[in-house]
């Protein structure tokens, strides 16, 4: 079976005027299979967001290769990149800030649909369906981001990410800014959507909470100073960590 996402030797070096270059991500390799949920954990500053931004091409990679669904997108631009965005979508850490304050949630959710050729009327209907799928009333389409709670906004963001039925969903700390009970609800929603989609949806789940990853992911990578120091099935990694850093990460939670 072909992986949905294949990362080879991915590296990011930030050159900062004057100071020595800083390697934020160094030779990262991994694959994500259809239907799989892969977690990436690591402390703040370990390079998780940098990896994600390179995959979504919001940031240029300094080296390595990114293959999405068999196509090399490492340097994709313009229309080729827009085509890649039909297959990969992202849920951001800050739900409210991920929607344009001057546009309604419905407008944001339907944006990708309209951009990819759906008529405005059809997109509107689809937005209602998506909102209900994510546990929100359809009339939330007319609300502005500041008129809904963080948890509701994140549900809308998930609806937006799934609108064009991507194969890959990236969640960069999608639950970190929410309080614990809401976090659980959003995770339950993601779990349900994932079961419904089966092998059609793979998830890259970035998180710094090892307990959440254990609950939610099939496999986990541990990132430390931009390098992968450990990987495996969450339960096994937690029971039997081989790396010192992973140990301290687990100890700090338990």
């Amino acid at each position, binding site marked *: 079976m072909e992986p949905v996402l294949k990362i080879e030797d991915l590296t990011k070096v930030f050159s900062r005027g004057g100071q020595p270059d800083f390697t934020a991500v160094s030779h990262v390799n991994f694959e994500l299979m259809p239907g799989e949920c892969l977690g990436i954990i690591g402390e703040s500053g370990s390079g998780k967001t940098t990896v994600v931004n390179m995959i979504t091409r*919001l940031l240029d990679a300094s080296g390595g290769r990114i293959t999405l669904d068999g196509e090399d997108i490492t340097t994709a631009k313009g229309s080729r990149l*827009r085509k890649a965005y039909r297959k990969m979508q992202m849920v951001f850490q800050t739900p409210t*800030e991920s929607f344009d*304050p001057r546009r309604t949630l419905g407008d*944001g959710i339907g*944006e990708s649909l309209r951009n990819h050729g759906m008529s405005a009327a059809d997109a509107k209907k689809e937005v209602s369906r998506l909102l209900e799928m994510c546990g929100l009333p359809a009339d939330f389409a007319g609300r502005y981001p500041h008129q809904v709670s963080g948890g509701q906004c994140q549900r809308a963001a998930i609806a*937006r990410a799934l609108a064009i039925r991507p194969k890959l969903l990236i969640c960069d700390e999608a639950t970190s800014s929410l309080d614990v009970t809401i976090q659980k609800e959003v995770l339950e929603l993601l779990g349900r959507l994932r079961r419904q989609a089966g092998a059609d949806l793979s998830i890259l789940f970035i998180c710094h909470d090892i307990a959440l990853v254990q609950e939610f992911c099939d496999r986990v990578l541990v990132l430390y100073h931009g390098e992968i120091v450990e990987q495996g099935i969450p339960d096994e990694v937690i029971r039997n960590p081989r790396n010192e850093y992973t140990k301290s990460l687990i100890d700090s939670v338990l």
Partner: protein
Amino acid sequence: MKEPTVRVQKIRRDSVKMRLIIFGTLAVLLLLGAIFSKYLTPYDPYLQDLRNAKAAPSAAHLLGTDRYGRDMLSRVIVGSWTSIFSTLLLVAVITALGTAIGVFCGWHGGRTDTVLMRISDIFLAFPGLVFALAVAGVLGGGLHNAIIALAAISWPKYARIARSQTLALKETAYLKAARLAGSSTVKIIFKHILPNIMGPVLVTSMLDIGTMMMELAGLSFLGLGAKPPIAEWGSMMSDTRSLLSTAPWVTLSPGIAVFVSVMIFNLLGDTIRDYADPKNRRR
């Protein structure tokens, strides 16, 4: 302890609203007056009556007459058309031009950005009116050239604002989300960037209306703007400055007209800035 602060905020908001209504109404009246200036004049502003030249203000001629016996009130009213609308045109041009350059630089970055921003630095470091004088001098007089000259030196302020706002927006999650939604650059600029940066840009242009009116009148006064016999406040003052000691009303009436209009637009700009201030906003 919470209640008093809430009340203070409410009172402040209400007073801002009050000012907005007052100055907004005055500005609208001024604009309407300028639009219908042709029909509001008590006399023909170009009709000469030499027997009645340099007459002091009276019931028949509220602002007196000039050296050809033309009714000053009529001339001031007719002059509002040229003075106000050339100012608005000028402000519209520099707002659009500056914003376009700023958004382009902020979005695109790189070499073009550096070059354009250095150019804007040069303009900002230069005394504006002196440069406008030089440009207008080279282009020759006339209202069009005065507008071109002032536009050429006034866009950098807007480019700066638009650029810094665009740079800040570029990092927001919602612009990243828009890119992931497959929106093209043009779509992102028109749907997400422009609406979100328009607030500060428009406040700046409101505050600039007064300044630009002064500078246009200044250029006209120096003979580089509107040409007689067109009634324009700056050139009217310039024409008649020799009469300041013998018939001061002829020089002073267009001056007072400039003063009052500049005042109204500045106060309106200030009020709009206060109103747009998020601290005053109830969402």
